[in-house]
């Protein structure tokens, strides 16, 4: 297989403790998977930023007492699809809070990712994002 060949029908699921130090690990995994699409580095950087941002928002800076992990599932088909799931409410509809001081909580992801959704069902918050692979 030559470098740059797009790989589809594959994916990875990572589950991490609610530890801010581990968000970087998820970013590295997301970038590695994104590179398998054969897209340029700008595309890879966008995936890395979006996945890191989603994890950061769902985990937060300080432990919130929740011991459930945050799960990140990345799948490649004709799109690269990412789902980040937390078993803890994440202020989906609420006002800005925490350390995103003066920055609307989801503004970066809404502006960055065309196909972006954040949903809360009971205690579960799910961030879904996808990008078309050209």
């Amino acid at each position, binding site marked *: 297989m030559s470098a740059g060949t797009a790989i589809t029908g594959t994916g990875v699921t990572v589950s991490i403790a609610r530890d801010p130090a581990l*968000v970087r690990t998820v970013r590295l995994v997301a970038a590695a998977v994104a590179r398998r699409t054969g897209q340029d580095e700008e595309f890879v950087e966008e995936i890395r930023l979006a996945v*890191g*941002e989603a994890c*950061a928002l769902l985990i937060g800076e300080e432990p919130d007492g929740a011991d459930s992990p945050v799960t990140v599932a990345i799948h490649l088909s004709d799109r690269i699809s990412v789902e980040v799931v937390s078993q803890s409410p994440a202020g989906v509809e609420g006002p800005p809070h925490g*350390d*995103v*001081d003066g920055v609307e909580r989801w503004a970066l992801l809404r502006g960055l990712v065309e196909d972006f959704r954040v949903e809360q069902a009971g205690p579960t918050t799910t961030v879904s994002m996808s990008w078309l692979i050209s």
Partner: protein
Amino acid sequence: MDLSLETRHEDGRTIIEVGGEIDVYTAPRLRDKITELVGEGSYNLVIDMQKVDFLDSTGLGVLVGGMKKVRAHDGSMQLICNQERLLKIFRITGLAKVFAIHDSQADALAEH
């Protein structure tokens, strides 16, 4: 890459040279540094982000919080950022209009 912070004083400003990643894990260190400097009476800050290779909204929040702190003392905060991938983040969040963003330290220090 972890976060690096180097501070120096020049022309009445305090320059913080930031390197590495400003994210949910490392941003508190930048916030603490800004809080420390403001506590010491440094109200005119220049944040040099030329060596920053990652920034998320937690980092943006720390910068906004820092600007509020210095403005409470009639101070200022200027940013140095010449990387398109970071400038894009400021534009998306509307903060490009909030911060004075310069290409270089020379440009930032030339502004009075």
